[in-house]
């Protein structure tokens, strides 16, 4: 008791001290503070090798470097690999590694290190929720072989086009082999001396649910080729503050408490005034969509699915609820997804209550019950929508509008908010009618898990050999034009079948003070701090 009492006293004293000299952030010292949402980070999500969460990849980037870098135009540039070759049968990727790279614990970066990391990702104990799949484990990936000290090959059983893209992310970044050997079990919790890579920053302090402090890696001289900066980072200390509340992050930015804040929401962007810039980057991959379960209940009928997609006013809802910050989605891929987007779908399926009504009449839902809902053979036209918690307020508002609009055409929507465990229980056997999510992914191959027979994100339970073939072909070729054609066909397929109803394209909104210079962005719109600095005006 007395110890915690002393702690409190110390804390209060410390906060008082901070309050005394807090404003403004001492700029001359090249310290940058970055506010993230990060609420789940402490829940075993510090390791991008195992975590499927965005935030894991975001903060992993500070420490973990990749074989290659992807430029904003979608092309790949050398990073830790000086060069690479792809075998003609598309099954073997051979990388020539830099020989001047060391991990911040002194370990050498070489072919063995690459192999150790890829082995770690695919090892069962890692229980990787995303990275292993990105590496093609379970479908295409065979193994990684060491050719000589600085040459390494990654081998596949079938062609796997998204590999380079995957290899450019921090999910396939590299930990020190020593860490993998001695403390692989601690990676999910993370921390100094555990989260050790070759990156531009070294994690020196971690307080779960509060902050991560990074210092510049003084030896860093192996930035990606497309980086504008070279040598060690100019930033001495990079502090990542975990501020789960949007309003708090926004407030922290405008009050100068932090220099950069990400995951701002449309409703708070307007509070960011002069002296700040808000970078809005549309996420590539699958927009926020409603997934209609076509083997369950009313959505077995394509007419009902189409009526559903036309039955609510997406434009007004998205525009109003997101304060014009997010765009309405037309396709199951976002416009920024490289080499795949089909713009011809834009404007093709506007809100049309009349047509929706006609379609439902045609589908035989002609009677009305006392509450005004359509019925057929005494059954009410009703669909059950499950969503997992926490549900952001804007998505709830969106659902309110959808529910309310559909009620007007006699279509009942029942919504259930489920905790993740309960959600998984229903998601597994696919017992719902509707569920919803967005899935940011730089490669259009993200569609495969959504539409391929048995795909783990195949919420619409579609199983069509034709669709499977399109997706398999697309992943088997690295020819970009061919992939674009194939993915456009997939998008057209959905537009005809309405398996997913895309609603809006989320954007990553990142605000930063104008004193921050040299920020770069990855394809997801995430800030990269390697080249950043603070200008002293």
């Amino acid at each position, binding site marked *: 008791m007395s110890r915690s009492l002393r702690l409190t006293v110390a*804390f209060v004293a410390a906060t008082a001290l901070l309050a005394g000299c807090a404003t403004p952030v001492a700029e001359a010292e090249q310290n940058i503070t970055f506010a993230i949402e990060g609420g789940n980070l402490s829940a075993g999500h510090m390791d991008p090798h195992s975590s*499927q969460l965005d935030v894991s990849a975001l903060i992993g980037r500070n420490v973990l470097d990749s074989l290659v870098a992807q430029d904003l135009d979608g092309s790949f540039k050398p990073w830790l690999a000086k060069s690479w070759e792809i075998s003609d049968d598309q099954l073997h990727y051979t990388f020539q590694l830099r020989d001047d790279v060391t991990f911040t614990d002194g370990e050498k970066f070489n072919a063995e290190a690459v192999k150790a990391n890829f082995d770690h990702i695919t090892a069962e104990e890692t229980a990787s929720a*995303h990275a292993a799949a990105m590496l093609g484990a379970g479908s295409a990936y065979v193994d990684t072989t060491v050719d000589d000290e600085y040459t390494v090959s990654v081998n596949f059983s079938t062609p796997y086009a998204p590999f380079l893209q995957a290899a450019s992310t921090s999910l396939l970044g590299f930990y020190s082999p020593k860490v993998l050997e001695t403390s692989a079990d601690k990676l999910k919790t993370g921390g100094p001396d555990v989260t050790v890579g070759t990156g531009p920053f070294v994690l020196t302090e971690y307080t779960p649910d*509060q902050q991560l402090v990074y210092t510049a890696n003084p030896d860093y001289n192996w930035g990606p080729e497309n980086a504008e900066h070279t040598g060690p980072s100019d930033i001495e200390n990079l502090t990542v503050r975990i501020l789960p509340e949007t309003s708090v992050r*926004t407030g*922290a930015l405008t*009050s100068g*408490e932090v220099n950069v804040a990400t995951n701002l929401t449309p409703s708070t962007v307007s509070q960011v005034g002069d002296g700040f810039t808000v970078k809005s980057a549309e996420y590539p991959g699958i927009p926020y969509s409603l997934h209609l379960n076509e083997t369950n209940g009313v959505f077995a009928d394509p007419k009902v699915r189409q009526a559903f997609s036309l039955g609510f006013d997406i434009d007004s809802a998205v525009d109003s609820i997101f304060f014009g910050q997010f765009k309405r989605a037309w396709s199951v891929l976002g416009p920024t997804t490289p080499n795949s987007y089909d713009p011809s779908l834009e404007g093709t399926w506007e809100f049309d209550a009349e047509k929706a009504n006609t379609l439902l009449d045609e589908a035989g839902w002609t009677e009305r019950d006392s509450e005004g809902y359509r019925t057929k053979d005494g059954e009410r036209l009703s669909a059950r929508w499950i969503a*997992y918690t926490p549900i952001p307020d804007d998505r709830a508002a969106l659902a309110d509008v959808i529910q309310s609009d559909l009620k007007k055409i006699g279509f009942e929507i029942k919504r259930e908010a489920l905790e993740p465990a*309960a959600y998984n229980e229903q998601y597994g056997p696919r017992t719902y009618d509707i569920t919803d999510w967005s899935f940011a992914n730089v490669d259009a191959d993200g569609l495969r898990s959504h539409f391929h027979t048995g795909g783990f994100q195949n919420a619409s339970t579609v199983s069509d050999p034709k669709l499977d073939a399109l997706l398999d072909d697309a992943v088997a070729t690295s020819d970009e034009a061919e992939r674009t054609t194939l993915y456009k066909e997939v998008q057209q397929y959905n537009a005809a079948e309405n398996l997913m109803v895309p609603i809006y394209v989320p954007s990553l909104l990142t605000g930063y003070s104008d004193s921050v210079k040299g920020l770069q962005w990855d394809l997801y719109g995430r800030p990269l701090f390697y080249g950043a600095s603070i200008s002293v005006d």
Partner: protein
Amino acid sequence: MKTSERPAELVKKRGGLGLRLLGHLGGVLLVVWGAATAGFFALKLVPGDPVEVMLGVQAQVSESVKAGIREDWGLNDPLPVQYFEYLGRLVRGDLGTSYQLREPVVSVITAQLPATLALTGLAIVFALAIALTTALFVRGEWMTRLASSVELVLVSSPSFWIGLLFISFFAYRLHWFPVTSTDGLAALILPALTLALPIAGILSQVLRDGLTRAADQPFALTARARGLGYRGLVARHTLRHAAADGLTLSGYILGTLIGGAVLVETVFGRPGIGRVTLRAVIDRDLPVVLGIIVIVAIAFAIINLLVDLAYVLLDPRLRS
């Protein structure tokens, strides 16, 4: 409400102070054991698989991996084995390892404790200051009536709503305080005040009642008949009597602080034990939930012990 034992009950107890202390310590252990046991079995009733929860939505993890995790966590052992292992660890001061955070529950809690202690500590200071001020300075009919109305409103308002109003008014409208949370004393004031107001309301109600009641006692008449004025009466006599009434509230106040911390930390986006609790409850992070239960039980038992001792210090009649 949670009150500590009333003096009347204490009076009946025989035996010296030391013996009573020993009895109290036994009581503390009993309460902690009871709470830990009840908590353990209650949480075993939780539906849903902790492993699923641990991995989150849409994790691509095979069944065999999940089974392995279950084995590692001892979730496959028979319940009595899990229970006694749990108790064994508890005795050694080990509250287990969080499912979600993958670190010892003790360090999870100690990492968050300072933030919550700072919040609740300042809240208590505010509450006491407000309550004592009203108790001492409110006299006369209309002031009394005003004070009881304000107290009623404070006690009746949901604290999280007060917090939202504060943010809306002081942070967004007037820009007096940062909306932002974690830095500095300025950021602590609104949350602490939010947490303090309902407590201040009830405390000042009880103190004022206690003062009035004590002033109606014969000894107060005697004291006034000696020529003592109102302030002298309060300082020398009635405040001590009212303080005893206030003491009975300490359990209630602790409860309000802990329950309130969950809401206030959420509203103001502050880190702390309340957030950890809420997260652990939502995530079914059983070791953390159990840890919180045990810590709260210990806190309550200790507070009750201190309150009982304070009664004895305050009231010589309990010493014999």
